[in-house]
């Protein structure tokens, strides 16, 4: 009984979140082999970055993880500012922290809704997006764009937070916890949801480390590792938060870790908004006409904890106005590569459930 059928899931498939293509070999309902095929959204952002100024490159980073764009901007700026020697002022650091955490919640909410759709739940998607809309309002108030904010810039942020934005963030902090609880209860109270996630898609600690998995997926496998704690950047060393960890390593653990991360992010934002210092929001060295004249030399690697995992940017400068080489460590790519291992010998329905918990965003994987 080893008659398998090769089934082609994607690139146009309802549950592959964009353009993932899974070549799977099924034996009846059981998946024997998975081979992810990627590259359908490949734009070669690394090459594009080599041909534009340091200040413009931000744009391509917005378009990587497009569901939580400010988080990606922060990652790039961590590296670029070190290379160019224009550190942001204190207020900009706190503003960026808030934006990064908001984008983490925004990204997790998209994942949450899409995960519901993967499992066949139609409604939580809309509740998640309803809450996400509040974050989008904050983004649009702060930056003028909803999705691809392009808010941070080298040496600070484009525009300062005003009272209205602070007010909206406070409103968000007030309503977010109860909405997150409601969303959470829609899922975890459901017996069918538990049966679809508990014990499914087990990933051991060793496998996770070996494949370079980071972020919530790694933490759900029992490694208490978060760049925000391990190598604090921005203002993360000055706020209190906890890293959710689970030793179970299954779909449910990954689900719960992400939910808990959202709660912790709300906590971080509420602390940051209180501690938001006054002062300049922009490093005068990087202002206006300096934009295209900034030169960087040497090489810098900066890593940040994006919503998907460890997001690293490696920039090599040769003293020119454009970077010599930009390399991006995409967390989703590493998280997807482990699907070959944990997607084996499960049912088709489970494969969808597992690839849902890896939280794929193809802008970032294919770059």
């Amino acid at each position, binding site marked *: 009984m080893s008659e398998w059928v090769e089934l082609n899931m994607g690139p146009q498939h309802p549950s592959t979140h964009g353009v993932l293509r899974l070549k799977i070999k099924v034996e009846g309902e059981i998946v024997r082999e998975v081979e992810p095929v990627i590259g359908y959204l490949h734009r070669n952002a690394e090459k594009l970055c080599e041909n534009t100024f340091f200040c413009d490159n931000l744009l391509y980073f917005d378009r990587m993880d497009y569901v939580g764009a400010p988080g990606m901007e922060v990652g790039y700026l961590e590296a670029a500012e070190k290379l160019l020697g224009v550190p942001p002022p204190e207020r900009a650091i706190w503003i960026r922290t808030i934006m990064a955490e908001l984008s983490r919640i925004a990204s997790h909410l998209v994942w949450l809704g899409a995960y519901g759709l993967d499992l066949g739940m139609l409604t939580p998607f*809309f509740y998640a997006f309803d809450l996400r809309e509040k974050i989008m309002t904050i983004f649009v108030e702060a930056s003028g764009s909803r999705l691809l904010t392009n808010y941070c810039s080298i040496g600070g942020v484009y525009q300062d937070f005003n009272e209205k934005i602070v007010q909206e963030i406070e409103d968000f902090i007030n309503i977010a916890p109860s909405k997150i609880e409601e969303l959470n209860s829609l899922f975890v109270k459901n017996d*069918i949801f538990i049966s679809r996630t508990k014990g499914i898609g087990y990933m051991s600690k060793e496998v996770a480390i070996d494949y370079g998995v980071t972020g919530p997926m790694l933490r759900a496998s029992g490694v208490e590792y978060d760049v925000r704690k391990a190598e604090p950047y921005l203002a993360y060393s000055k706020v209190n938060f906890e890293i959710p960890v689970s030793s179970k390593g299954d779909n449910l653990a990954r689900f719960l870790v992400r939910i808990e991360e959202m709660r912790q992010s709300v906590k971080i934002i509420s602390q940051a908004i209180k501690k938001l210092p006054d002062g300049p929001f922009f490093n005068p060295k990087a202002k206006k006409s300096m934009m295209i004249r900034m030169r960087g030399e040497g090489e810098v690697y900066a890593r940040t904890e994006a919503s998907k995992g460890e997001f690293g940017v490696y920039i090599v400068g040769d003293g020119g106005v454009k970077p010599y080489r930009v390399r991006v460590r995409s967390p989703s790519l590493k998280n997807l590569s482990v699907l070959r291992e944990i997607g084996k010998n499960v049912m088709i329905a489970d494969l969808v459930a597992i690839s849902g918990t890896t939280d794929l965003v193809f802008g970032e994987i294919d770059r």
Partner: protein
Amino acid sequence: MSLLSFTYGIFKVLGYDLATFVTFLIDSIVFLLVASVAVAGTIYFFRKYMARVQLRIGPNRVGKFGTLQLIADAFKLFGKESILPRLRDDLPYKVAPVLVFIGLLVAFSILPYGSLYYIGDIFISNSGVGIILLFAVLAIMPIGELLAGISSHNKYSLIGALRAVAKDISFEVPMMLSVLAIVVMASARTTNSLNISSVVTSELLPYGILEPLGLFVFFISMIARASYTPFDMGESESELVSGYSTEYTGMRFGLFYLGMFGTILLGSFIVSLFYLGGYNGPYSSDIGLIYLLIKAVIVVVISFTVWLAMPRIRIDKFVNFGWKYLLPISVINLVLAGFLTIYLGW
């Protein structure tokens, strides 16, 4: 007084043979139209309801409150090019959607719908073995699904059809057992316990109160029959694209779509007839149809809410659930029904 005699009264001048023929023809056509409109109304209601539950507005552009949206959709579906897969098995591929829809319409015409003032009892067929006939007709629909899945020559369709069949086998037996319990209960009160209208008329206390387990099993079976979430493994759109209807476009797909919503409506009618007291109600018995409709709408709302709130169960878990839980529950229910009937005489 019934719908048939009411119509016969109008055409009496034509003589017995011709009048009977015309009566049945006209009544059938009216029934067909009403059933189709009711199914379309269910779809409209679903879209509105889903939108409101999801904090949206729903169709509101075509006609007042979007009521004409379905007509627009129907035109769209008719106007679409029907793309036929090259490797199809032609006849079964074309027959399958029709089979699903026909099975549904026939099932509609078997049910009694209570009475309304001047028209009287509304039914087309009042067969003495109505219950058996009803479930025999309902068993046509899975054949259509299977044919659709196999004849499309698509891997997704094939897996979907296999899932649909596995699902059907695992809930049919409990469903029939729970219906059998109804027949057992009814047999104490009426001589004709296989006739649907006499079963319902004997149902002074709704059987759902006497047999909550039966109601549970039957409701789940009706969800599985209509194949929406949580039991839509056959056409699970996030796993198998669209299951057995993957290769269908245009009006052929529309028939599957209508079939699904029609089954929800039919299932609600059956549930309210068998378990919720049907067209029995307080005060006048002349408005039985209204009672039935109210009950059916409540069941439809419950079905839709379940649909929108639940994730999809995995096929092997459902088969397990069917054989290990639903079947024993329905057997217990049957035993209880017998006990209640024989010893307590309820």
